[in-house]
């Protein structure tokens, strides 16, 4: 055993790809964030399945007019960011900058549309249990989008400064997986808030 271990092999140094501690740290972080969204949606379902005076959601089924295109936009941004990461690893600087930069912009548009969606609601955060849940769940997601946007912005700027390329690109990969997480978790939020009421799953009449 010890011979094998003491063998004098060449090893990479520093934060390289999936060997970087930061990458592992981010995976763990994503796990805890995923758990957070499970609990958020648990709270929603918990309220939804209890007996109600009227229908659930009490404010009517939320419209998908803006939410559906917005969902598609967010999912598409994941591919764009992936493309940028790919460019970084293969030394294509223009891919790198365009992919990360456009990914950032798409995320920002998503956020703006979410803001409009909030404004168009006829109820507010404090109107009742459903309203509190709706705004808190989507609000938590938006907060995560904001964090993801900061990460994308940072790696875009650092890419402009020429920090990342084929030799070292762990930062870009770390930002990218977080962004994929933010997108993936939106699908679950979308399913919970917009689709389950349509599927007639949570209609607990008196």
């Amino acid at each position, binding site marked *: 055993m010890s011979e094998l271990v003491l063998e004098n*092999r060449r090893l990479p140094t520093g934060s390289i790809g999936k060997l970087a501690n930061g990458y592992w740290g981010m995976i763990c972080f994503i796990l805890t964030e995923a*758990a957070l969204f499970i609990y958020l949606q648990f709270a929603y379902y918990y309220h939804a399945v209890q007996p109600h005076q009227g229908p659930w959601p009490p404010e009517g089924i939320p419209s998908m007019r803006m939410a559906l295109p917005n969902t598609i936009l967010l999912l598409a941004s994941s591919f764009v960011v992936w493309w940028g990461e790919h460019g970084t690893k293969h030394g294509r600087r223009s891919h790198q900058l365009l992919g990360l930069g456009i990914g950032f912009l798409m995320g920002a548009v998503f956020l703006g549309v979410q803001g409009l969606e909030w404004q168009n609601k006829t109820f507010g955060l404090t109107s009742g249990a459903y309203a509190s849940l709706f705004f808190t769940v989507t609000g938590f997601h938006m907060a995560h989008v904001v964090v993801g946007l900061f990460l994308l912005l940072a790696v875009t700027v650092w890419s402009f400064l020429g920090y990342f390329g084929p030799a070292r690109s762990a930062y870009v990969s770390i930002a990218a997986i977080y962004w994929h997480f933010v997108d993936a978790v939106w699908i679950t939020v979308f399913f919970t808030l917009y689709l389950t009421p349509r599927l007639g799953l949570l209609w607990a009449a008196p």
Partner: protein
Amino acid sequence: MTVTEYERAPEIVAEGYDSATAAGLKALWETEPGIKGWFSTVDHKEIGIRYIVTAFAFLVAGGIEALIFRLQLAGPELHLLGPEQYNQLFTMHGVTMILWYAFPVLTGFSVFLQPLLLGTRDMAFPRLNAFTYWVFLFSGIFLYVGFALGSVPNAGWFNYTPLASRPFNSGFGIDFYALANILLGISTTLGSINFVVTILRERAPGMSINRLPIMSWGTLTISVGLIFSMPSVSLAFFFLWMDRRIGTHFFDGSGETQPLLWQHLFWIWGHPWVYAIVLPAISMISQILPVSCRRPLVGYTALALATVMTMVLGFGVWVHHMFATGLSSMALAFFGAVSILIVIPSAVSFFGWIATIWTGRPVLNTSFLFCAGFIIVFVIGGVSGFMTGSVPVDWQLTDTYFVVGHIHYVLIGWNLFAVMAGIYHWFPKMTGRLLDERIGRWNFWLMFIGFNVGFFPMHISGLLGMPRRVYTYPEGMGWDTLNLITTVGSYVFAIGFLLLIVNVVVSRRRGAIAGPNPWDADSLEWSTPSPPPPYNFVVIPAVASRSPLWEERLQAPENRSSIGEGMVLDHGKEIAATSAIDAQPEVILKMPEDSILPLLTALALTGVFAGGLGPMWWLVAASAVIALALTCVWLWPRDRLAQTARPHP
């Protein structure tokens, strides 16, 4: 400008702790002396000790609170405290003990020990490690600032809604608790991530997962558990804070809100948390006991699996805290069954220890005494837990002193006794000096006797119907004598604990010099000088068995670890990262130097939460912006750590 080094073959040498190489490493790793160094150190040994000392300060605070209200309960109809003061004190006691003492103290041991046990030089994220310590400290100070200002939580440590909701509980006490708890949760979660990455990635070459020190199994298991369970309670406290300060409706009892949801979210975290504060302690016993018994642990694999199993089952028992809330009998049956199932892995550990003692040659030092005391109390606490795990019995016992007895057997027995054993065992490693054994005996016997005299009668007063959380009780209920005994026992226990502090103060100055391995122990930390130098190991050891320092006795010569010869890694602060299962070297990681940023960022984060009190949005916004800017500086990619691809190859 030097060109970033992207790969190299590490030199393999045989060097001792007095070589020139060691001096070079010391210069690289050492914290600069003085106040700036003190605030910016990222040395895990320093941070670990700070964690332990801070947690003990909270233990003393919580203990004083308990001793005050125990005086009140010493006899019937005493009025030292009013009912509201009593509520505040027992709440602060429970909160302080379970959140700010019991887990952080174990974190302290893990932060100090894990890198040494694993044969590496620091945690995976040294600055994050400092950050989590500061956040823990500030969250506790935050809570006690509220206490000092008279804003004291008073709804028990589990803080049920709607009692804790604003219509029924005005003032800021609950808000202090809620915000401090979220802050502590951030610290705990990030700390857990740090442990997981450290244990999976930084083991000495050859330390495959089946050679992981048993104590690391405890830390790894609960860290994974906390990664999944912490968000639940943080979210619950966040909802509660929103209900109270923003006016949302989650559990305030109005309209269609669901107060019971609080209990679910709280206990989904709460029960895994109970394991988080006992499993690392249990695995600490499994680490110490074989050393005292002069033989390897019996049933290593079974004990490691039992640890993991307890955590897994621990996620399926939260409802046993809610048996009396009127849930369906289906739910009760399921959760009752799992609660009883969880006895099995605990029994596995128990038999492993007994067999280790039985087949070993125990050395009766203080550390062993605490291990033995631990095992006895472990059984009593386990049996009373088994009793409350059964639904009909629980209906009788819940909210009586029986439960108070049970939680103290579990928390003091399974946590504090193990911590005491750990202190006696590792104090020499931390300070270079042995604790005094004579004071140690007194320390143990006073604590052990005081504990049993103080807490066993609680079971009986509980069976006689005395409810918990009452500020006084009338005469003639048959509880008087029992309560007097309880109070006397508590004070004996407290005096016993005081002896530890005396012992530490005396021995730090005048204790016998320990030398590298005073107990002739088997794990890697004992191969370093006491206290270990800033870089821990001159060369990274290569490990070939579970007991690397006992191989002369246990292992054939061709199958031995290499402790004195290995990779030097001295082109800057460096460690080796190895693969997660087989621990084969994969990469040389560059570690960050000391920095004041963790402290500043922790302060800014605390500012965000302090702003939540009003809420004062300007404070929240300003602190958040500062925290963000600091994070940006902190994470700025650096050539020296080979994080960047400059200059282009």
